[in-house]
């Protein structure tokens, strides 16, 4: 290792300012001195062999500096690497399938935060709609968004029986909100392994999916505000989000009907009969077919239907999730519609209504 700039014994207090000029060599190599300093260093290098040698060495070192490139990693590498590892040695304590989306979405958001420049933490983030009972235009910053996610995750932590996490100091602490939030999600993923036998559709698995969904939605808000690209979630995770939303639709349709917001005429399904259904056709890696009962709030959403659906609507997986997050309005969401328009309207509005819950 080279000697430290302090304590060089050679040529102390030399008349030509060797000692002072030597300390400037790093700044000189990075072209960060003032023009006057630059000129004095250049002149000195012509007469001082040790400084000239060091200048050449530091100049070479400066060319090795490359900006960090965290976001350059191909999207999906994390899932590819983790799956590759687990194929070679299966886990004794697996992360349950329903906790994997939260694990992955938190990692993606964290990578985005890692790449954000200091000033980008001050960027105004407008939560477009859906938040705050649908009032558009609530402005915050990345720190405020993290504070919000922290609160959601803390509620989930109470559900799992984790001790109350230490809250980040202040309501909007900028980058300081990052560490506590990240630690909390790690604890949530770890504790999920203890609940592996929970089944797939219980309240706890769905609460994990909701937190993951919120993490993705808000990560997009941040990424849009600072103008970073943000890829969609891993296909199987996206499919869990779509499925979660689809399963919530009959309840949301019924709530809107009770509030007098439904456009299609009310038809009570006779007891034991499923009534009408809408065929929801979601395209993309997270896609599939779901049949949404519209007359019975408690009827199960399923992937098959005995009768003829009264309507069919096609949407992209990401768009469907954005609709449910209040980021895309119902009229702009579908890529194709057939059948009963009023039922379609009701179901799409019911999806948008989920963002206000």
């Amino acid at each position, binding site marked *: *290792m*080279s000697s*430290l*700039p*302090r304590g060089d014994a050679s040529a102390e207090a030399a008349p030509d300012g060797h000692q002072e000029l030597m*300390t*400037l*060599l*790093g*700044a000189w*190599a*990075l072209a*960060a*001195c*003032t023009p006057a300093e630059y000129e004095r260093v250049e002149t000195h290098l012509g007469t001082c062999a040790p400084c000239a040698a060091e200048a050449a*060495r*530091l100049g*070479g*070192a*400066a060319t*090795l*500096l*490359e*900006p*960090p*490139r*965290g976001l*350059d*990693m*191909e999207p999906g*590498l*994390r899932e*590819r*690497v*983790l799956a*590759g*590892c*687990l194929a*070679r*040695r*299966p*886990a*004794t*304590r*697996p*992360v349950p399938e329903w906790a994997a989306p939260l*694990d992955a979405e938190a*990692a993606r958001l*964290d*990578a985005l935060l*890692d790449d954000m420049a200091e000033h980008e933490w001050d960027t105004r983030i407008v939560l477009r709609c859906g938040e705050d009972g649908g009032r558009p235009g609530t402005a915050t910053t990345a720190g405020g968004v993290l504070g919000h996610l922290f609160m959601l995750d803390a509620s989930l932590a109470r559900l799992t029986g984790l001790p109350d996490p230490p809250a980040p100091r202040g309501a909007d602490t900028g980058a300081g909100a990052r560490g506590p939030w990240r630690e909390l999600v*790690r604890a949530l*993923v*770890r504790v*999920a*392994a203890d609940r592996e036998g929970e089944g797939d559709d219980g309240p706890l698995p769905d609460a994990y999916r909701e937190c993951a969904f919120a993490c993705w939605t808000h990560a997009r808000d941040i990424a849009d505000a600072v103008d970073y690209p943000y890829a969609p979630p891993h296909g199987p995770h996206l499919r869990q989000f779509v499925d979660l939303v689809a399963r919530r639709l009959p309840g949301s349709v019924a709530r809107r009907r009770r509030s007098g917001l439904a456009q299609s005429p009310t038809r009570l399904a006779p007891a034991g009969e499923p009534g009408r259904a809408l065929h929801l056709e979601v395209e993309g890696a997270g896609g599939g077919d779901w049949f949404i009962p519209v007359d019975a709030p408690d009827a199960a959403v399923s992937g098959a239907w005995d009768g003829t659906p009264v309507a069919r609507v096609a949407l992209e997986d990401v768009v469907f999730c954005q609709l449910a997050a209040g980021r895309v309005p119902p009229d702009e969401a579908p890529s194709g519609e057939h059948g009963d328009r009023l039922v379609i309207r009701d179901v799409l509005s019911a999806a948008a209504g989920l963002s206000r819950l």
Partner: protein
Amino acid sequence: MAHLTPPQWDRDIRRRLEHGDAAALSELYDRFATLAHGIAQRILDGDERAAGDVTGEVFARLWERPSAFDPARGPLRTWIAAETHRLAVAALREGAGPGTPDETAARVRAASTAARADYIVGSMPAPLHDALRLTRFGRHDCRETARRLGITEAETHRRLRLGLQLLSSASRYDPDAADGTDR
């Protein structure tokens, strides 16, 4: 960017990996993927697919055999950097393409130096790292860097010089020696 991994963290994660804890595998990946991928990408000259494969191989080896890392012999960060370096150089030699053995050796040497430099920058103390980052990538002069860091210009000069001195050791690094000894 993480600068130091506490030895306790290294030991805990190794124990959890040994127990087959998949959450530990996630934490390991999230902590070191950028490091490993950055080294692999620099050595493999931006070959995205190959860099991803090397990154995957590093984590798979540690997951399959956590005892391959011995905390008594140095930090996990160093182990991952060295293992990535070794695998990436091997991948580069394998897919070296046309060129004489001398040309291939020169490419391997240049790539190794570059990757080593990234590693040094990533693990140098934060005050040096921040001064270099602001000056080089922020394109600030010393006055502005000093203002942003809340230090004197003289201290900025000192940090820039010391940072570059550390970095200059990257080119004195022999990739062939690293194959087995840089642990």
